[in-house]
């Protein structure tokens, strides 16, 4: 496997953390849309995460809506043309839940619908503290390939989350109205007026630059 670098766009990181914090007492999962670029020598793979689509927070992995959500995410990615479904994320409900074997089922499900699933992000719940500016990045990154075990990526090979993004994320997390208006696909399936693509949050995250 080549070395991997992960680059985050603001709205993707913000939505990811909003999903973790909104359903703090439940397991959550979702997928990433982005691009994968290889260096000329194929020794470095840069994964740029442009968007995060929050999918489910109810009774994973037996939730049939997960299957529908993944298929719809794949269709949305195809429609945008310049991004693909490149990975998925999972946050366990327990404080100590941060091992990749707890999300093998998610990688399998996503891989059934796309060949590009390369990135698995798992929340390290012990690092999800109230002051996110002082904490370490609460994520563990794994490179996934079909037929192989997930390989954890060393954090020094990843693009460090800049303080400006952490501060921006904190503003979103502290805003009660924005948190109440954030919804995932499970919420949308119960109430169709809820926008699970959270376009208003994407536009707000661009406005607050």
């Amino acid at each position, binding site marked *: 496997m080549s070395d991997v670098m992960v680059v985050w766009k603001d709205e993707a990181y913000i939505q990811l953390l909003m999903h973790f914090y909104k359903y*703090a*007492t439940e397991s959550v999962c979702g997928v990433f849309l982005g691009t994968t670029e290889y260096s000329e020598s194929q020794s470095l793979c840069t994964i740029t995460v442009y968007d995060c689509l929050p999918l489910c927070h109810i*009774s994973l992995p*037996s*939730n*049939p*809506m997960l*299957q*529908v959500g993944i*298929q*719809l995410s794949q*269709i*949305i990615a195809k*429609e945008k043309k310049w991004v693909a479904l490149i990975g998925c994320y999972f946050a366990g409900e*327990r*404080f*100590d839940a941060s091992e990749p074997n707890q999300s093998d089922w998610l990688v399998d499900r996503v891989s059934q619908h796309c060949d590009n699933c390369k990135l698995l992000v798992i929340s390290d719940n012990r690092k999800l503290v*109230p002051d996110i500016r002082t904490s370490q990045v609460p994520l563990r990154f794994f490179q996934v390939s079909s037929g192989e075990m997930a390989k954890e990526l060393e954090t020094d090979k990843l693009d460090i989350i800049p303080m400006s993004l952490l501060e921006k994320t904190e503003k979103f997390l502290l805003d*009660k*109205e924005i*948190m*109440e*208006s954030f919804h995932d696909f499970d919420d*949308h*399936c*119960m109430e*169709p007026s809820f926008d699970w*693509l959270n376009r208003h949050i994407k536009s707000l995250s661009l406005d607050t630059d």
Partner: protein
Amino acid sequence: MEILSRFRKCTLTTNTIERIDRTLEFFSFLRFYSLRRPALVLPLVPVLRDTQVDTIEYWQAVELAAFAAADVSNYSLFNWCCDKIKKRFGDNWRLNRLVGLFHEIRLDYKAAAAVYERSLAKHPSCPELYKRQVAILKSLNAYEQAAVVLCDYLKTFMVDEESWCELVYIYLHLRKYEEAAFAASELIILNPSNWFYFLLFAEIHYNIGSYESLVTARKYCCYVCKIQRSCPRVLYDLLLVCKALATFSQASKNMNERLYLFASKHLRQLYKNSCFLFAVEELVACSSSKKFKH
């Protein structure tokens, strides 16, 4: 957004008595719907601190503030709430539950379990203490044991809907679908007016995946469609079940196709004014072209 508008009403008024009333009403609303919103509860705690009311709503609000403090590990506020309750009511099972919770948030599950056991010895008819024991087992990743404890509890408290629901989710976590289906059927018997329980039953049978289970799932999905057609989840479930049934040769192709087209048509109607319609159209078209070739 109703919850936010209620919260704002508490903060916008300057009249002290009105603020107290609205705060207590808001806390009652949260308790009634079992909503867990520490971000909305904690800013209103100063109202409770400055109040000298001795009503049941006030003390229930203090208890709710304790839970919110536990959610964010605010030990000083949590201790303040417990001390206040202890001064007023002395030692009782509700206070013991809070003491146990204090140990739980510090991850001292042994101490918490000991508190609950001692309290249960004095008050064996307290459902909340049994539930905390189940919560501890879940926190320790002992889901099998949690299911056993919950089943024992349900032998005594067999009309506790919340516990049957929890049992369904524990069995789903363990991928024990037959047991989950039994627990879901108990939920239907307890509350046949709740359409969600029928849908949950259908989804569990979809997960089982055998021909008979899928036929059962389809029946229950159709029943829920009759009463709740505006919920996308119901229609998506019907689509998935019909798609899965189409792989079985003994399935009735005509009925399957008709139900699939029914679900597709209603999904299109549901999304007709949404920018998301293209994705639903493609999902429906892609699945039907694979499964219903003539």
